[in-house]
């Protein structure tokens, strides 16, 4: 009740100031955004997308960063709710997408928009995530094609058990199965999707199988680390590396095109942020939103990376 009066007052105050008046009438003045880890460019891009678009609409955004820890995230969501947010954009941290933040927000009766992952048993009003299977298929199909449809291949996975990890492998496996000449000789899982892990894992794989021709890293960080390991091993002419996500650094590396890492799938991260804000507004106004919204990732090679560097989708 107290909150209701407060937000009504705030709305009235907003209505009197011409500049921010646009927020009034949207049904939302304050959005809480819970991000697993801002060190990862993928999440940072979503945050930029949400902030940029919400800023234009005159909506305030409060961002919290869980540093990959589920418990921290639950605490942060409690704090967001204390601040009286009108909508909650939730990107779960860790492999166990915790259901508790969704339940807490539900108890307050505010819209819950899931991005990237969705907790089992506690769905939000909608979930927005990048398409994984088809895009991963395209990346693997592309590098296998460049290798002439044959050769030894390895996969460096992301954090085991996460949705993108499972689905990207599913897509890539389809491409591998279509080419009987391609032999999957090793796979290894990383904890953080990070370049140093990619480097180390690839180095060990190259040690065990010096005749590897194809590497698929499930994230650009992993792929770029692996490409560096290939260069260090002096195998840059023999190995082709494919990545995923279309991170800023990865796209710039593709523009330069001077490493074994030559293809990725660029996710529409900023568009996801915009979509999340729009969905929150729609739910707040009782409009219907699809249960799943799945923007495609775009296959990106050395030739067409430049346009995405100029403006990330």
């Amino acid at each position, binding site marked *: 009740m107290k909150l209701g009066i407060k937000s009504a007052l705030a709305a009235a105050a907003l209505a009197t100031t011409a500049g921010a008046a646009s927020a009034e009438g949207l049904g939302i003045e304050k959005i809480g955004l819970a991000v697993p880890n*801002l060190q990862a460019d993928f999440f940072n891009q979503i945050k930029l997308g949400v902030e940029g678009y919400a800023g234009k609409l005159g909506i305030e955004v*409060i*961002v*919290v*960063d869980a*540093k*990959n*820890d*589920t*418990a921290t995230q*639950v*605490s*942060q969501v*409690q*704090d*967001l709710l*204390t*601040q*009286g947010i009108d909508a909650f954009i939730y990107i779960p941290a*860790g*492999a*166990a997408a*915790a*259901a*508790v933040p969704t*339940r807490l927000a539900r108890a307050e009766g505010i819209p819950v928009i899931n991005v990237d992952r969705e907790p*089992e*048993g506690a769905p939000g009003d909608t979930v927005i995530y990048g398409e994984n299977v088809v895009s991963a298929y395209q990346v693997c199909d592309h590098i296998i094609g460049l290798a002439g449809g044959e050769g030894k291949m390895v996969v460096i996975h992301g*954090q*085991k*058990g996460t949705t993108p990890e499972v689905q990207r492998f599913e897509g890539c496996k389809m491409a591998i199965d279509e080419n009987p000449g391609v032999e999957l000789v090793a796979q290894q*899982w990383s*904890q953080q999707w990070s370049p140093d892990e990619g480097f180390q894992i690839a180095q060990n794989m190259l040690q065990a199988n010096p005749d590897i021709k194809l590497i698929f890293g499930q994230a650009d960080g992993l792929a770029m680390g692996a490409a560096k390991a290939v260069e260090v091993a002096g195998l840059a002419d023999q190995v082709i590396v494919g990545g995923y996500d279309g991170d800023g650094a990865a796209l710039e590396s593709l523009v330069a095109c001077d490493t074994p890492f030559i293809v990725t799938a660029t996710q529409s991260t900023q568009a996801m942020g915009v979509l999340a804000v729009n969905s929150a507004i729609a739910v707040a106004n009782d409009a219907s939103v699809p249960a799943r919204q799945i923007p495609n990732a775009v296959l990106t090679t050395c030739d067409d990376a430049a346009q995405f560097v100029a403006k990330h989708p």
Partner: protein
Amino acid sequence: MTTLNGSERKTNLSDFFSLSGATGPLIGLLVLCAFLSFATDSFFSFRNFLNIADQITVLGIMAVGMTFVILIGGIDLSVGSILALSMMVLGYLNVEAGYPMGVAIIGALLASAVAGAVSGLLITEFRVPAFIATLAMMSIARGLANMITNGSQIIGFPTWFNLGAIIRHFGFLTITVAVMITVFVVATLFLRFRQEGRALYAIGGNPEVARLAGINVRLTTIMVYMVCALLSGLAGILLAARLDSVQPSSGVAYELDAIAAVVIGGTSLSGGTGGIVGTIIGVLIIGVLRNGLNLLSVSPFLQAVIIGLVIVLAVAAETFKHRNAR
């Protein structure tokens, strides 16, 4: 909050001397609360204090165990991993193997205690420095936690388990917070009034003198590491209730938070001085700071800098005090 203030006053009356080490941190905490009350209107509310109590449960219980270890001049880097191990054992026994929750909790605590006992034995019998022994245990326990499910999470606990962390009995007390307060009270009384509690200070001051004074230093050391691990395991169970799920990557770097809380609370890293009341205040400072910075919408990057500065400030203040005393 109110219960903490209550215990504060009680110790103040009965044992004024022991609080002297924690007055600095206490003033810091009060200043912090006063500042946040003025800086943001959502901080000073009953609901927010309950949130803070929820948020510090895991850190609070781990920090109690860490206080014991640091008091005897040791260090335990394995608490975060043992927390994860306890969670995974709990999840495995209850969800995968289908045992009742009571059995699963005992199993999880047992696994934690064994890990702590191994650390203690390595330190006392094999003369491995505590830093190395617990560093090894950190790696071993994390590996075991991962092996239980091959790295994936477990969900599907009974409903009442999660409700224990959500339902507020008498309007304010969740079961998890009640467990934390119980641990605080028992640990404070133990350190103050039990002979075994006073022995920890003696060992931290000088283990050789403690031995000559008739204290069984080896056994006490093993027990301390075992209790510290047991409390980490207990914290893991409460965390599992709070998250309604368990995953082996939980609790990474929690040992550093626990050490930071103990140090901010005025317990000396070289052992022998300090206490639980200081640690509780240290835990509250970290909890209030994180909560307040979130409420102030401080950018996550700046938050990390501020928390680092507070740790430096607390330790520097302690050093200055010692220098002046000398």
